[in-house]
């Protein structure tokens, strides 16, 4: 690898701009791939396959070639609505799993820095809060307040922006009512069914850390299904 390329890689990492390092392991040549930018002409014929690896966030040697792809993709953003007790445990799990976390809760007494040190907390209603966060199909939403006033607008935002994971805390009844409200708001059945509710995989536990574990396990499973 040329020192010049290493400098470029480090610069891209500093800027958190997504890219891939492409290496031809049969002749030692390497270059950087960035979305929507022309690629080094020595790698042009592999462009479609490289793109495919990049989109799927895959690292590895492209089949039947000597081209190794290593992707640098920003961590997945997880937005937690409701700075409740479960959220405190969720934050711990999510941090060690390298998710990028942000908490929304308009209720100032919940979302304090003391309860959530070193974390991005937005003390606003979801409609306002989402104006401050860039979200897309690589984002996940965990709604924990089970208060329609707070959860519903967040769920609507997540559905409209095609979050790959949307989960909402609450009993079966709570969830049925929630689905009805979303239906009334004009969301399709497929959209509504994509919400994980009641949230989490079945572990049997009822304590806050156990519920947090069941939620994070579901989130990880859905992340790898993407």
């Amino acid at each position: 690898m040329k020192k010049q390329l290493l400098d470029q890689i480090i610069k891209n990492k500093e800027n958190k701009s997504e890219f891939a390092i492409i290496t031809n392991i049969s002749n030692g040549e390497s270059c950087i791939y960035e979305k929507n930018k022309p690629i080094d002409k020595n790698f042009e014929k592999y462009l479609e396959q490289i793109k495919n690896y990049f989109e799927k966030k895959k690292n590895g040697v492209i089949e039947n070639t000597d081209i190794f792809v290593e992707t640098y993709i920003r961590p997945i953003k997880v937005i937690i609505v409701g700075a409740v007790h479960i959220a405190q445990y969720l934050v711990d799990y999510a941090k060690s799993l390298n998710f990028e976390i942000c908490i929304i809760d308009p209720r100032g007494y919940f979302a304090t820095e003391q309860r959530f040190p070193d974390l991005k907390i937005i003390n606003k209603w979801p409609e306002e809060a989402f104006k401050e966060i860039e979200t897309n199909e690589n984002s996940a939403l965990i709604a924990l307040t089970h208060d329609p006033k707070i959860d519903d607008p967040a769920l609507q935002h997540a559905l409209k922006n095609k979050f790959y994971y949307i989960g909402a805390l609450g009993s079966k009844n709570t969830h049925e009512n929630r689905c009805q409200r979303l239906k009334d708001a004009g969301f399709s059945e497929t959209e509504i069914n994509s919400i994980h509710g009641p949230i989490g995989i079945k572990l049997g536990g009822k304590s806050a850390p156990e519920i947090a574990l069941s939620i994070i396990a579901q989130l990880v499973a859905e992340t790898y299904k993407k």
Partner: protein
Amino acid sequence: MKNSFDEKILEEANDWIKANQKVVLATVIQTWGSSPRQVGSRMIVNEKGDFSGSVSGGCVESAVVRECIGIIKDNKPFKKIEFKVSNESAWEVGLACGGEIAVYLEQIN
């Protein structure tokens, strides 16, 4: 989940180069069966055999260091090496987990 942006091994390689050391980058490029570190895992090695990072759970690092010093001495730009249980060197450095890995070595110049 891997967060490549937070890993600082390439930055460390850059610091070594600034300190006038020769640096070989070793990257896991393929794995088969159970292997301790995923594709993209890295270690760096200098001409003295100092190293940082890892490509396995300690199973093959010593062999990788030897190979890296070798390519610096021979002034080879790159080399691909594989570690399998069936390797002749299995008694010495094979992967106890039964996995196989391919590691790509490249000098930074």
